[in-house]
């Protein structure tokens, strides 16, 4: 099962500069664990204290995963996952 994951510029240091990598997982949480296995260090940039970081947006097929159950969001073969840091500040 392959799911395409789009990686933002700031995290490409973990993917050898790749804009997009393939990963596997039946849920977003499992997918991130699989990413971590191949790109060590990336998980900590996405997850804090067992939940998605507040200022990291993850989309599955263009839908914000916060509306799909967060890390519990289910994934299927061929889904596209996009990771984008929030553009935010004070």
């Amino acid at each position, binding site marked *: 099962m392959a799911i395409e994951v789009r990686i*933002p510029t*700031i995290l490409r240091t973990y993917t050898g500069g790749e804009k997009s990598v393939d990963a596997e997982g039946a849920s977003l949480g499992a997918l991130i664990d699989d990413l971590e296995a191949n790109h060590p260090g990336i998980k900590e940039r996405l997850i804090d204290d067992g939940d998605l970081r507040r*200022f990291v947006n993850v989309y599955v097929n263009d839908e*914000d995963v916060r509306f799909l159950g967060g890390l519990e969001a289910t994934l299927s073969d061929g889904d596209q996952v*996009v990771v984008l840091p*929030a553009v935010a500040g*004070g």
Partner: protein
Amino acid sequence: MGRDAVVSPYAGRVLRLEQATYDAIVAHAKRDHPDEACGIVAGPAGSDRAERLVEMVNAAGSPTFYEFDSSDLLQLYKEMDANDEEPVVVYHSHTATEAYPSRTDIGLAMEPGAHYVLVSTREHGNNDGPVEFRSYRIIDGEVTEEEVDVVAHLPARSTT
């Protein structure tokens, strides 16, 4: 160094902006005052050319915070991807404080290649009058101010 040498206070980095883009960013900041305004100027990837202004909605609708709406953010990045663009400038306004990145701005700056522009509307609010307009690099928590060079038109694109 000669006594007459002009010493730039900046480390040689420059943000070059067209007058029209500069004016549009200032107008956006004044219009949204007292809430913070935000947006980007996109340009061809790797070119450092601030060509295409995109005003964004501040989903936080706040005088002390800004955040691009999550679906707008996705659409924006997909559009830039399709155009082979990147965010050359990320701008926002401060409406009660100086045009310098706040601790939150620094902590959340995730575009190491971008010029972070800060406009302060604290002096004249929605009204005419000068604003503070400054630009920075923010990389790994380190802030470096750079010169802002406003030109009538960007030089023609290199064709090579």
